[in-house]
């Protein structure tokens, strides 16, 4: 009986059953409830929703460094082009609308400039070897002392291509770092520095905010110069502009120092000097190790031992040093960027891409460095291609970024402050007022009415 009624009510085209009866019996019917749930499911999970949040800046940097490492291992223009495309895709998908995020195009331009400089220098200074001469520049005779350097002369396809490949590799690395800069707030990265680097971090933060102030006061003083009618004269320039700007900067830094002091900056527990010195040695030694290790890793001609082992030892030293010195700083951090699965994913992608091309370049260097003598078309090696394409995954793995300027002021909690209870897509008040159909459905569901 119940089953029959439930089935009846389930068919929406039943004209006979009155709504009230169907509702009452349906309420008791398990079948009916399941039916209602399945019917409601698409409405409630209409779209897969992920809260917008900023990914930990460290994750973006590791991803970008991984891709840069990959770029450093190849001169294949197809692979490099693919890398740039991948980076651009991720940036366009996951950068926020904050001011620092708009710099990516500048890095693209910088890349182009690098390539152009590289090629032009090659053409002018050393047209290159190889048989395919494109044109010949007039040669400048140089004295014997400059033997080995030639200006002008024949310019070959091989020479131009070699310069182009090389420039493209450098450009790709620059673009990778640019991507990191546009995806991650540089200041958040400073905020994520370990406690030991806290003083350095705040010095850099302050310096970064001083720069625009200097520009501003420079502009203001420059404008004021016109009021004294002395624009044409260069003799007084230094005193007229530099003196007021510098005194202004000095005043401001004193005021800032006073403000920081009265807000509790520098409340640290004292440490015995010997212990501080040891900590410093550990930190500095570790950082030097990291620097050498990174160089070894990036430069394929350096001995293998200079790479990973030095990097690991350096990291270990630095970590110990940081932990030791971090212990004496008593401060807490407001809303630190969490490190969750998305961060692990993005980091893993970066490491994978870097490692894959590192491995490929040692196993099969030919495919990643297309031959110029003889000239052949570069091909797209399947392994490297797949590895590079993996690099695009953060455009999906990473959560969407927080929109700052677009955030409606009327919503009490901005997108950045989403908490578990607010993860449901929230109807904006104005939409609700306008009679959002979604809202009507939701209200009917609250009243126990079944969407038909």
């Amino acid at each position, binding site marked *: 009986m119940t089953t029959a009624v439930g089935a009846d009510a389930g068919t929406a085209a039943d004209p006979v059953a009155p709504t009230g009866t169907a509702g009452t019996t349906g309420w008791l019917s398990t079948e009916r409830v399941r039916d209602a749930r399945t019917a409601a499911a698409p409405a409630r999970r209409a779209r897969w929703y992920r809260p917008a949040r900023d990914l930990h800046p460290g994750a973006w940097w590791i991803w970008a460094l991984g891709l840069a490492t990959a770029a450093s291992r190849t001169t294949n223009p197809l692979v490099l082009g693919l890398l740039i495309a991948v980076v651009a895709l991720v940036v366009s998908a996951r950068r926020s609308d904050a001011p620092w995020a708009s710099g990516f195009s500048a890095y693209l331009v910088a890349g182009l400039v690098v390539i152009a400089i590289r090629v032009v220098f090659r053409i002018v200074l050393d047209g290159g070897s190889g048989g395919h001469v494109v044109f010949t520049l007039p040669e400048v005779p140089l004295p014997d002392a400059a033997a080995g350097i030639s200006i002008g002369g024949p310019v070959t396809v091989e020479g131009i291509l070699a310069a182009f490949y090389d420039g493209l590799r450098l450009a790709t690395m620059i673009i990778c770092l640019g991507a990191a800069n546009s995806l991650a707030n540089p200041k958040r990265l400073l905020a994520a520095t370990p406690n030991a680097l806290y003083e350095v971090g705040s010095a850099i933060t302050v310096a970064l905010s001083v720069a625009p102030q200097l520009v501003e006061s420079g502009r203001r003083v420059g404008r004021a110069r016109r009021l004294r009618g002395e624009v044409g004269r260069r003799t007084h320039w230094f005193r007229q502009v530099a003196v007021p700007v510098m005194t202004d900067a000095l005043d401001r830094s004193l005021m800032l120092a006073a*403000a920081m002091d009265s807000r509790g900056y520098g409340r640290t527990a004292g440490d015995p000097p010997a212990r501080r010195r040891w900590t410093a040695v550990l930190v500095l030694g570790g950082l030097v190790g990291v620097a050498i290790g990174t160089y070894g890793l990036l430069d394929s001609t350096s001995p293998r031992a200079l790479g990973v082992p030095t990097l690991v030892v350096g990291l270990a030293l630095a970590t110990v040093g940081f932990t030791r010195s971090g212990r004496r700083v008593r401060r807490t951090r407001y809303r630190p960027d969490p490190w969750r699965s998305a961060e692990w994913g993005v980091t893993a992608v970066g490491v994978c891409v870097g490692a894959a091309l590192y491995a490929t370049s040692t196993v099969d260097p030919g495919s990643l460095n297309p031959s110029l003598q003889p000239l052949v078309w570069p091909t797209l090696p399947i392994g490297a291609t797949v590895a590079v394409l993996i690099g695009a995954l953060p455009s999906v793995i990473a959560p969407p970024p927080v929109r700052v300027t677009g955030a409606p002021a009327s919503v009490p909690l901005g997108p950045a402050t989403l908490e578990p209870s607010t993860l449901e897509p929230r109807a904006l008040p104005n939409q609700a007022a306008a009679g959002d159909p979604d809202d009507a459905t939701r209200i009917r569901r609250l009243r126990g009415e079944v969407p038909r």
Partner: protein
Amino acid sequence: MTTPPIVVFDRVGVTYPGADRPTIAGVDLHVDEGELCVVVGRTGTGKSTLLGAINGLVPHFTGGTLHGRVTVAGRDTATSPPRELAEVVGVVGQDPLAGFVTDTVEEELAYGMEQLGVAPDVMRKRVEETLDLMSIAELRHRALRTLSGGQQQRVAIGSVLTAHPRVLVLDEPTSALDPTAAEDVLAAVTRLVHDLGVTVVMAEHRLERVVQHADRVVELRGDGTVLSGPPEQVLATSTVAPPVVQLGRLAGWSPLPLSIRDARRLAPALREHLGRVPPPFRTAVGPSTPTPSAPTPPTPAALAARALSVAYGSTVAVREVDLELHHGAVVALMGRNGSGKSTLLWALQGSGLRSRGAVRVPAERSGAAPVDTADLAPADARRRVGLVPQTAGDLLYLATVAEECAQADADAGRPAGTCDALLEQLVPGIDRRTHPRDLSEGQRLSLVLAIQLTATPEVVLLDEPTRGLDYPAKAALAAVLRHLADTGHAVMVSTHDVEFVATVADRVVVMAQGEVVADGPTAEVVVSSPAFAPQVAKVLAPRPWLTVDEVRRSLELTPC
């Protein structure tokens, strides 16, 4: 008294190195918990020193010698440096932007707590509370530099409040704000005092805004000593007093009124008396407009702007402004911050940006066509229109006042000593060997004005000259501007200070969103506006008296 005072000064004196006498000396002061204490006094009497001593910035940060004992909530500042007092005393300076450490509102609110090691969940809660308390919740993600002055100041106060200090020290928090923004900040401060019981010690130049909320007024008398007591008692004799108090003193009202409301309740007799007296002739002070009835000035305009527009990118700062300045008149330019006042002044001078329109001054040779200020070389433009910018110190770059004066003479091609004589006329007795940075705000302004006047401009523009000036300095500036107008200059001065406008201006131009929304005689424009009416006008309305001096003159002519 059941609770002990929270701030105690016990025979405190401060002497800075190199100074021949102490800045403050023998100060005994008790501030009770939950009081709003206003510190008043002329520039240079040691207001900032007194405030700095509360959290130990004086002498720990500034240097100098502290005599006596300052205790805050039982802690001696001699042994606790400012950073250790951070959870007891919160300090906000004059320029909020200079004190910001981070770059967004939320991070700034959290900064102090991070330093104090407050637990993360407590921090989160306090930030949300403070955002609501200071009404800045909608600004939480905004960059600090993009906020307006009033918003910045509220963020600055909020950022020290998150540490839950028991005393809040504010050093002239509203000196850079327009009247509305200042109201917002002061409303927030009084809310803190009344609802949260925070003790506030505040220095303020424009007393008319705060004195009615004050529980205690501390007057620095210039000799290093202080007078502390209830506002009515201290202001009865103080050298600085808001117009409503001065009016009260003049009329002999008792108790002394501190607010418009109090004064109006005491004023009916005075209003009635003034109703029988001829109203003051405001326009009769300028020589070129001999009778107030003359509708058109006899001389051609000293400067005429037609359809002047200035746009920065897509933002229109000044929109199709028509404006004429006449010889012998002081024009006040008013309007909220960001309404285009500075942009307009710079565009009028000719060296600022201009998108469209014309600004003409009469040609120097008679009979020639008027010239546009933008077509003149900077050296020529300043001989026609002189501008004193908002940060007047930007124009100064030499080591002594004497050098600056000599340079000004050379620049303007005038005989040596011209600038010096002008300066002596404006402010007598400045030591010519002083470094310009060591001058007081008012003296520096006068030096820049003298430098600009050396080029003999007929039109003088001043951008917010009253910022940071105390009452006597403002009175001196008003006298200088009046003198300039009387000697045939056309003067335009942008300011937020309604009392200053009432004293000095013949005409008021009000701007909003880059447009001129009101332009007329001071009495008409100012009295009809609730925001711009001076205190005396509010007390005596509908009688057309605007300043205490006018009332005094009328009373001298026809005593009660």
